[in-house]
Every structure is written in structure tokens, then in C-alpha cells.
């Protein structure tokens, strides 16, 4: 089956899927050893993916505008890490349960792992790399260091992005409120008390974040 053949069939979406299924089945029969089948399927999967249209995307990340062409299945998280090489934003669960991938989209905190990049047309994204100014850390970053708000550090970029939003939203009025409004960021090292202290400290100091 060639790409031309698929386009001729008229109903593009159905034939794309059929191509994938038939090709994978054919490969499985022809190449018996498991590893070979896996490799072949992966190869075919990539070939098949090529038939799905890439979409144009204009996105601004940390003040820099990017004109990109993306596959619709790419998440904002993968775009940031794999395409733009901004690896500060972390992939924890990748299922919207841990908050490690938290970024700001048009100033609002959101989970980049559950956001499709293609849906962010024209949006302004801020990641942990966009918080500091040159060598000068953001006040929230300073506070996390001062209060020892982490141990392994993997959840920290998400915690800090969420913490900045928490204060900006006006949800850092008390330790109880901070705990409620930081509940979307899991820390398996259990640095929670120090994270709450860091946020309270920034809130108390005031100033614009």
C-alpha cells in the first residue's frame, strides 16, 4: 500500500486507520520473533503517523515566539521538553495526577501533560526557566531555597509554578488555604511543611510576583 493508494480511497480517516491495522497484522505474521515484530510495528506506526497532518502552531514561551509544525498528539509538556529543550518542566505521572508539569498558560497555572500543544495557538506559556531574570532568581525560587522546600527536587519546578500562581490568585492567606490550593502538586519526599513556609514567606514579604 502506498500513500497515493490511501488518498485515492476517498475516505481518508478510515483508510489511515485500516492501513495501520493491516500493516501491523501483516508485519506480525511475516516477522515472527517478538522483538522484530515490535520494531516493525514501531516503524509502521511512525510511517502511519506521517499520514496525519501536522498543524502549524505559533506559541510564545518565556517571551520568545516560536512558529512550529506539530503533530496533534504532541502534548505541551513534550513540546517544551523534546522540541524546545526546556527540560525544567518535569514529567512525573504524565496523567494529570502529580502536578510536576505545571506551567502558566496566559498567566494561569495548568497541567502541560494534559494540554495538547496544537490547542495552544497564540498562547503565552511561562515555564520555570522563564521565572528568573538572568542570574537573579525569582523571589519564590529564593524562598524555596531558604526554607529547604524540596529534597530530591523533581516536583520543585511544578511546585514553584503553582506557588507563584497561588499567591497571585490570592489563595495564600493562611497555611490551611495554601495547603488546599497547593493540593494539585504532590511531593513524595514530603517537603510540604517547608513548601508552605516558603509560600507564606513570599506572601508576607509582598511585592509583585
Amino acid at each position, binding site marked *: 500500500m502506498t500513500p497515493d493508494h490511501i488518498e485515492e480511497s476517498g475516505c481518508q480517516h478510515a483508510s*489511515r486507520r485500516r492501513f495501520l491495522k493491516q500493516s501491523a497484522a501483516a508485519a506480525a505474521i511475516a516477522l515472527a520473533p517478538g522483538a522484530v515484530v515490535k520494531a516493525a510495528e514501531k516503524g509502521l506506526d511512525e510511517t502511519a503517523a506521517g499520514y496525519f497532518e501536522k498543524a502549524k502552531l505559533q506559541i510564545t514561551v518565556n517571551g520568545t515566539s516560536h512558529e512550529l509544525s506539530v503533530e496533534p*498528539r504532541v502534548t505541551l509538556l513534550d513540546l517544551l521538553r523534546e522540541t524546545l529543550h526546556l527540560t525544567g518542566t518535569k514529567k512525573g505521572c504524565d496523567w494529570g495526577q502529580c502536578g510536576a508539569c505545571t506551567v502558566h498558560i496566559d498567566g494561569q497555572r495548568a497541567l502541560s501533560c494534559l494540554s495538547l500543544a496544537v490547542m495552544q495557538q497564540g498562547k503565552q506559556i511561562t515555564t520555570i526557566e522563564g521565572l528568573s531574570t538572568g542570574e537573579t532568581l525569582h523571589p519564590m525560587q529564593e524562598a524555596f531555597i531558604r526554607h529547604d522546600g524540596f529534597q530530591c527536587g523533581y516536583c520543585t519546578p511544578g511546585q514553584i509554578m503553582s506557588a507563584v500562581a497561588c499567591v497571585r490568585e490570592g489563595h495564600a492567606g493562611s497555611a490551611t488555604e495554601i*495547603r*488546599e490550593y497547593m493540593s494539585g502538586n504532590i511531593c513524595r519526599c514530603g517537603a510540604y511543611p517547608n513548601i508552605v513556609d516558603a509560600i507564606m514567606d513570599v506572601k508576607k514579604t509582598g511585592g509583585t510576583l
Partner: protein
Amino acid sequence: MIPFDYARPSTAKAAIDAVVRDKSARFIAGGSNLVDLMKRGVMTPEKIIDINALPLRGIARTGKTIRIRALTLNSAVAADPVITERLPLLAQALKAGASPQIRNMATVGGNLMQRTRCPYFYDTALPCNKRAPGSGCSALNGYNRMHAIIGFSESCIAVNPSDMNVALAALDATVIVQGPKGERHIPIADFHRLPGNTPQLDTNLQRDELITAVEIPDAPGFATTSLYTKVRDRASYAFALVSVAAALHIENGSIRDARLAMGGIAHKPWRLRRTEDYIRRQQPSIRLFNNAALADLKEARGHGHNNFKLVLAPNTIAQTLRTLAGLA
């Protein structure tokens, strides 16, 4: 994630036409549930229709109803002054759901369409009648601590995970949908379905219909005396074991009217009409509430791990009513 195509129409008509034309196409709004399900291979649309360019945002008070358009974010609804003043029950339920990040992504229309969090529905290696009709229910004899105690069938014992839906059920909301043949108004009680032998269908929304708004009667009598109680395994960011949305209209020491619905116990938000009837025109008392709390749960039955809900459910109803009436 398997590959798929993407389109972003700018009118509701174009969006509806797109799903009519393509049987494997699905709408996407916030994506906080659908993207997760697509990553795991539970849902595999070949095309997604991004409806975010449609003019479906905002909240308006018109006469005796409050209209929330479908793309309004959960966080925006929870913080809106019209909602916090006139429908605080809805604001409370929304704030009890998910996390701040997810509430910034999730829409009202999407929340109505949220799928169950039954772990067997998510695990494509195991049978599930909701995901693969006819394959069997793994939860029935599996680990069913989170599952339904009422309204379930042998096909499915999953529960609806939404907090917002419970408040909407108590508040007599109407879901407004648009399809190829025009607009349709669906009372919230008829929007979600019981599993029966078609658990693959969560709602009565047709495949080619788009939710455009939710309308809620503006009932000021309930505004000051309403409460959403959510019982869960951790203090925040967890799905409900059970939850109760309650609004009482108390006048001259007597309960003039009551609206009650429960979450975490069934495949749809469970309106507690018998409990409402039991306490209407009565004077609030602990005894009244304890008895009333059992009225809608006579048919309830556990599946082993979730037997605790048979006690937790009435206790949560009674405690919510006591708190509202100042008897706690």
C-alpha cells in the same frame, strides 16, 4: 498516543457538521479527561474537534435563571460573584473537585461528560463493559471500594466521579444542547444514565450533539443555606467516597423546601427525593435527619470492599443536614 487529526472550527454548526461527517470524531474542550483517556488507549478518536474557538464562555443572569455557557472554566464559575452569591452550592462543589490547575483547564460542558474513574475502565488489559461492551465487569468481583451501592447493574458498578454534577442535580439544572436538528433542553436528572445493560453510554447526549450551556433556576431561598460535603481519602485532590449536595430553605423554624443529591454512590448523581419529602414542612431535629437519611438508601447494597458506604452514605446525609440546620 495513537495519531489523530485535528480541526478547530469557529462556529457551532461547523463543529457539529464535523462530527456528523466523521463517525470517529469527538469534541475536545479542556481535554483534562479526554487526553488522559487517549494516552491510555481507552478512547481512540481518529479526529478531535477543538471547540475552544466557539463563542461559548460566560455567565449571565436572565430573569429567573442563571445561564453558564459550556466552555466556561470550572475555576471561573467557582469564582464568579453571581455564582458565589446566588448558587454557593455550585461554587463549593467545584472547589471540592480536582486541583486548581485542572479547574483552570476543565470546562462546565466537559465536567458533565467526565467519565468514570473505575480503575478497570482505565486498564485496557482487563474486561470492562463500559470500555468494551460484552467483555464483562472486572469490578463486580474485583477491588470495588470506590464503586456504586445503588442503581448499578450486573454489567457495571462504576460511579460518576464529578462533584459539579451532584450540585447541578440538587439545583435542578437543565443542560442545553445543540444538534443537527436544532436545540434541545435536557433536565439534569435525564442527562446521565444508569448502566443497565448499556454501560458504554454515560449520558443521553447524542454523538452529534454539542453542549452549549447549563441553566440553573435562580432560587434565592436556597442561597444562604446550602452545603457540599465531600468525604474522601485525603483532605484535598481526591475523588469522593461519598458526597452530599444539600440546600435547605428554612423559614420560621420549619423546612419550607429541600434539595438534596448524592455523589459517589451511583452511575449518575443520585437525587434524594424521598429524603426531601421526609423533611419538608418539618422542624429540623437530629432524629428527623437521622431517619430521613435512610429514606433513599433502602435499596442500597454493597459489593464487599465498598460495604462501608452503606453506613457512610446515610451518616454523611444526616451530618450535612445537621450542619445546615445549626444542630451540629
